[in-house]
Every structure is written in structure tokens, then in C-alpha cells.
């Protein structure tokens, strides 16, 4: 990977540009000057001062967005830093990401929010902090949401923890109307979860592993939908994993509840049978579920119930994964494998329309979280991701830029690869 300053004068030729308005691809050249797209049309003529790049065979998409990453800084810099996370993000084609506040200390003050912006100012990716819903993510006292929003918190979440107390969540939702930012919920009832380490199923029975039943998620989702309906607040359900959660959200949307939802590439790909070899890279919260759940998640993506694909990129040092399932930490990295998984499984294998899928990692999350709307059109800042939809590649340690490599996908062959990213005044050749 090469990260360099964006050329002052750049012409991208033979681009196949994703056009969401037309719901089609447009063949054209893109002229970029000082980071701004000056022209998008066929056969642009330029003088020799322009750097010319031929993108024949590649697709140019609005820059990818991931609204759910853990960059571990401050506090757990051995697993990831904002810098290493930014490299991981850009290598996966992402130009904007939202980082979760479960750091040490948690991002629950203005200083915490400012820290993320200051530290990431010169990094090649826009990093937006999501601030905690409750102080210290302890689930009892609300953070100063208005103050936090003023300095740039894009959403509020106690991710990793469910806000177990429904009264606290009610107040959080009501209060969040002052800032009009989404409340992002990690929907897993802790009491029902009861420290379960994998989906409660025939597989957990066979392996003797403690089960975390799907009702832990579904009851949490139902409660939050009911609270959102009651309060009129905006909620975003993180990493939905079960068929009935999808149904609940679908129904709530029809009734006008202001809910959006995301799914991870791994929950769309793997099932709890992954646990059969006791590999702790399968330990994820919420857990990998059944095949029927995977099918329902895909259905939810197709019919628009699920708005966003987000990675829940969760780096952990290898020693916390080279251990028993009970002992291991939860979560896997996702930024570098996300696009490969999405293209291979959803677009190539399942024939989901590429343009609709791209919306889930571009304009949909941008609108929900109030980020820069990535568009490939005249007059806007250049924020785009170039990919080859038909390149085979193998996901390996060499293609990982995160500090950690806790992933179940090492050795997977992907069809579809990110080639270049232009964002924030950088051009990245992956």
C-alpha cells in the first residue's frame, strides 16, 4: 500500500462511475484539481501538467464508510491505534469511519471527542467519534450529549454494553432529541446472555459451550423499538444477527419508528458451526448464528430493512484469541476483509445488485450519521473508492494493516478488490 498526497492536478480516465441517482454506471473521465472534482464527462482533454491515471476495467464508487469500528485509542494501543486503524480502513477502501467509545478512558467527555479529531487530523481517513450514552459506559448517568455533539460526536453508543436499564434508555432517547443524533444500541440483554460464549443452539450443545440465546438480542431489539416508538427518538441498531430481529425492525419501520439498522459482513457469511473447531476467532458479540438467520439478514438487506453494512472492526492482541473460547476476547477485525466478503458473497454469489449494496457502505451511513455525503460529481470534494469487481485475491497477513490479525477469514479467496482510494487530500494505492 502506498499513501501519498493527492496530486494537485489529476485526471482519471476510462472510469466506470457509480451513479446512485440513475441507479446505473456511467463511463466518463474525472478531473480533480486541488482535491475538488472539477469535471465528470467523457474524453476530457488536459495539458501535460495533469497526472493521468487510466482506470479501465475498474469501478469508481463514492468513498466507502464504516460506521462501526474500534480503534482502541486511548487505552489499548497494543491492539490498535487511530493511525494503524486509519491504514486498515483506507486499505479496505474506506474514506470515513466512526469509532466506538469503548476506550480507556471511554469517550464520554468533550476532551475525549476532541482527542480523536486532533489525533486523526493528518491521517488519510476521516475518523468521527461516537460518544458514550452513559458516563463511563456504566449504564446509569447520561453523558453531556449536547456538549459532546457540539465538538463533533456523530452519535451515541455504549457499544459492547447494552444499556440494561430501560428507564435510562428512555431518558437517553428523549434527551437525544436535543441533538438529533442517532442512539446506537448494542442490543443484547446481559441477563439473558448470562455470559454465554456462542449462539445457543445444537452446536453449543454438542461442544458443551455456554449458549447465548437469540432471545437475548430479540428482546433487547424489541424493547428499544418500543422505546423509540414511544419517545420518537432516532435509533440505530448495531450488528443485527437474528431473523426475528430483522422482522421486528421491518415492522417498526412500516409503523414509522425512526429506526435504522446495520449488519456485519461476518454475520452475513459465517454461522455458529464455525465454532466446531473451537477457534476463538469465531467468538463475536453478538455471536454467529444459524443459516436461517443468515438468509434472513440477506433478505433484510435486499428489502431495505437493513440500511447499512458495518464491520464492527474489533482488533485484539493475538494472545487473547489463542486461548479457550471462555477466556478469549470477543470480536474480529473487519476493515480489510469487508469489501472482499461483500463482493464475493453478496454480489457475485448471491447476485445482489452492486449499486444497492454500495449504498449500504456509502450514502446510507453518511445520511444516518450526518457524515460527508460521498458523491462522484462536479463541484464536490474528491472522496472516492476505486475497485476491480473481478480480481481474485487471497486474504492474508500481508493484506492486513491493522495491528491485530484476529480474523476467521485468513486464507479466504475473495473476488473483488479495492485498488485506489482518494480522500482527505490523499491518494492511496492499495
Amino acid at each position: 500500500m502506498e499513501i501519498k498526497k493527492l496530486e494537485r492536478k489529476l485526471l482519471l480516465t476510462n472510469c466506470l462511475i457509480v451513479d446512485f441517482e440513475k441507479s446505473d454506471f456511467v463511463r466518463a473521465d474525472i478531473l480533480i484539481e486541488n482535491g475538488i472534482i472539477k469535471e465528470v464527462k467523457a474524453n476530457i482533454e488536459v495539458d501535460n501538467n495533469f497526472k493521468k491515471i487510466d482506470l479501465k476495467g475498474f469501478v469508481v464508487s463514492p468513498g466507502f464508510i464504516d460506521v462501526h469500528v474500534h480503534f482502541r485509542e486511548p487505552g489499548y494501543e497494543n491492539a490498535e491505534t487511530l493511525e494503524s486503524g486509519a491504514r486498515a480502513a483506507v486499505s479496505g477502501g474506506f474514506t470515513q469511519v466512526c469509532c466506538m467509545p469503548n476506550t480507556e478512558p471511554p469517550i464520554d467527555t468533550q476532551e475525549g471527542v476532541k482527542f480523536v479529531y486532533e489525533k486523526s487530523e493528518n491521517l488519510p481517513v476521516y475518523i468521527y467519534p461516537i460518544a458514550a450514552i452513559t458516563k463511563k459506559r456504566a449504564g446509569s448517568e447520561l453523558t453531556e450529549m449536547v456538549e459532546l455533539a457540539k465538538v463533533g460526536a456523530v452519535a451515541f453508543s455504549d457499544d459492547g454494553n447494552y444499556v440494561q436499564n430501560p428507564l435510562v434508555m428512555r431518558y437517553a432517547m428523549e434527551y437525544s432529541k436535543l441533538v438529533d443524533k442517532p442512539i446506537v444500541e448494542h442490543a443484547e440483554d446481559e441477563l439473558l446472555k448470562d455470559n454465554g460464549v456462542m449462539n445457543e443452539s445444537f452446536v453449543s450443545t454438542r461442544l458443551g459451550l455456554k449458549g447465548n440465546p437469540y432471545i437475548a438480542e430479540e428482546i433487547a431489539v424489541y424493547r428499544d423499538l418500543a422505546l423509540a416508538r414511544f419517545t420518537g427518538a432516532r435509533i440505530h441498531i448495531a450488528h443485527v444477527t437474528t431473523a426475528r430481529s430483522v422482522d421486528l425492525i421491518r415492522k417498526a419501520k412500516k409503523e414509522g419508528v425512526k429506526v435504522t439498522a446495520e449488519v456485519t459482513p461476518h454475520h452475513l457469511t459465517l454461522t455458529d458451526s464455525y465454532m466446531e473447531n473451537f477457534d476463538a476467532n469465531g467468538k463475536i458479540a453478538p455471536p454467529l448464528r444459524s443459516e436461517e438467520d443468515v438468509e434472513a439478514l440477506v433478505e433484510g438487506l435486499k428489502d431495505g430493512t437493513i440500511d447499512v453494512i458495518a464491520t464492527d472492526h474489533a482488533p485484539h492482541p493475538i494472545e487473547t484469541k489463542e486461548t479457550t473460547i471462555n477466556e478469549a476476547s470477543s470480536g474480529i477485525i473487519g476493515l480489510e476483509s469487508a469489501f472482499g466478503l461483500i463482493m464475493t458473497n453478496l454480489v457475485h454469489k448471491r447476485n445482489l445488485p452492486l449499486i444497492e449494496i454500495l449504498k449500504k457502505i456509502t450514502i446510507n451511513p453518511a445520511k444516518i450519521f450526518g457524515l460527508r455525503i460521498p458523491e462522484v460529481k462536479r463541484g464536490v470534494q474528491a472522496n472516492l473508492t476505486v475497485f476491480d469487481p473481478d480480481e481474485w485475491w487471497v486474504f492474508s497477513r500481508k493484506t492486513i494493516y491493522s495491528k491485530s490479525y484476529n480474523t476467521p477469514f485468513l486464507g479466504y479467496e475473495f473476488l473483488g478488490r479495492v485498488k485506489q482510494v482518494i480522500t482527505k487530500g490523499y491518494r492511496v494505492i492499495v
Partner: protein
Amino acid sequence: MNLSIKHLLGLEGVPKDDINTILDTAFSFREVLERPVKKVPTLQGKTVVNLFFEPSTRTRISFELAEKRLSADIVNFSASVSSLRKGESLKDTVQNILAMKVDTIVMRHSDPGAARLLTRFVDAVVINAGDGTHEHPTQALLDMMSMREKLGTLEKVNVAIVGDIKHSRVALSNIYGLTTMGANVVVCGPPTFIPFGIEKLGVKVMYDLDEVLQFADVVMVLRIQKERMGKGFFPSLREYRKQFGLTRERLEKVRRKLIIMHPGPMNRGVEIDSEVAESEHSIILHQVLNGVAVRMAVLFLLVGGKRG
């Protein structure tokens, strides 16, 4: 007399031929144990490490005795004095021990999959002496040996496993082994102790112990662990005993020949009455002797044939 398996991690997927070979070998070692001189030189020059990360008396002693009877060199390591308490990982602990050139590891650990994990780190033969709520294969083998001894076969034998099925590695290993051997298995206990989808393993779920006792040839009673109390699985020991305890009163109503087993340690007066545990039906102490024979067989078959 070779096994298809390299390690004994559990009985899930272990073929019938392997189980038969282990049981046949165990019966011949039983004869050795009846002799005045109970030692054979089979594992001379081999080193076995007994790694016990969880307290155990009977399993540890049984393995040690089996190893000594086979003339192996033994190293014992238990968690109370271990470096694990100092924050060293399982991987480091085990690799350190293996650096001292040992051939076999017998491990007890509180986490499911621990034995399987070990095979990723080391070259030695791994024998699972119980991994949390997952499997306890040598216990199930000794149980099957005891049943076969009494009944001549395991085919079509009706075995009832009674109690906390959900948290029992003994139950799970027995279910895998017994169903492979063609026995009919029934599990019986409060619904809170019946794990999700257990019937898909080919066992029947029943809640009425008296009904179960009408047809069972073997009743295996599981220990109620104290730590399950007060967690809401069942309301009281009193009610548990009334519904699922193998009591004298309950047994008196059964006019059939029954074999009663318990993997130990027993909570007398809870899941089993003293009179029942010591009755003519009980083969509980028999199980203990077979335990040594079965462990000798497993060690012999997995370690004995190999060149160091």
C-alpha cells in the same frame, strides 16, 4: 490394534471400532490389575505429564495409577501451584513443559475445547481428562466398560442419564459413546438442565423418572453441583430429590433388575440415597477399578506403539 485417532479429545466422532478396541484392551488390563504384581513395562521410557488446571481427586489418581502400572515416568502439575495464577497463558505453560521433552499430556481444564486447543500448540499425544462442560471421554469409556461387563453388550441396552445434563461432560461423552455403540439413551432431568436440541444427538428426553425406571437397564445418576444452587435452575434440593433423586422409595417400586451408576463424587441424600448407592444394583465402586484399566488401555494404544 491401532486406533484411527491420534489423541483422545472426546468421543464425538470416534468410530465404533476404536471404542471396541479400547474396551477389549481395557478388559485385558483388568486381568493385569487382578494379579499380585500389577505392573507391566509397556510405557517404560515414556513421559506423561498430568496437567490438572481444575481440582480433581479420582480422575487424577486413576490416571496416575494407570501410568504407574504401565511403568511410565510421570510429572504432575496442578493449578493451585501453577504459573497460570501468575498470568502465564495456557500456551506458554504447556510449551514450557513440552520443552522438557514429554510424550503425552493428560489434561483437565475448566474450559470446553481446552484439550483441542492444546493439540494446536504441541506435538505430544493429548488425552482429555475433562474439559469444562464439554467432554470427559475416559469416564464414558469406563462407564461403557462397566455396562458391557455386566450386560455382555452395549447394543440396544437402555441407558438413562439422570440429572444436570446441560453442564455435564460425563453425560455428553456417554451420549456420544453409547449412541455410537448402538445403545438407546434417555436423558431425564428438570427442563432447565436439558440442553438445546439434545434430541438431535439421538437421545430421548423424558421428565418422569418413575416412567424411565420402567424400562431402563442402566441408570446413570449425575451429581448436582452446589454452584447451580440459587441460580434458578430448580427451586430446592428437596424438590429436586423428590422429582429426580434415585431414592430408596422410588427404587422399591421397580420390580426389575437395574444397574445403578454414578461418576462421583456423590451427594448422598440429594441425587442418590446412601442405601441405593450401596445396594446390590450399584456398580459404583466397580466403575472406579475399570477406570484404571480403561486409562491404561488408552495410554497403551495412543502412546505405547510409538517410538520416542
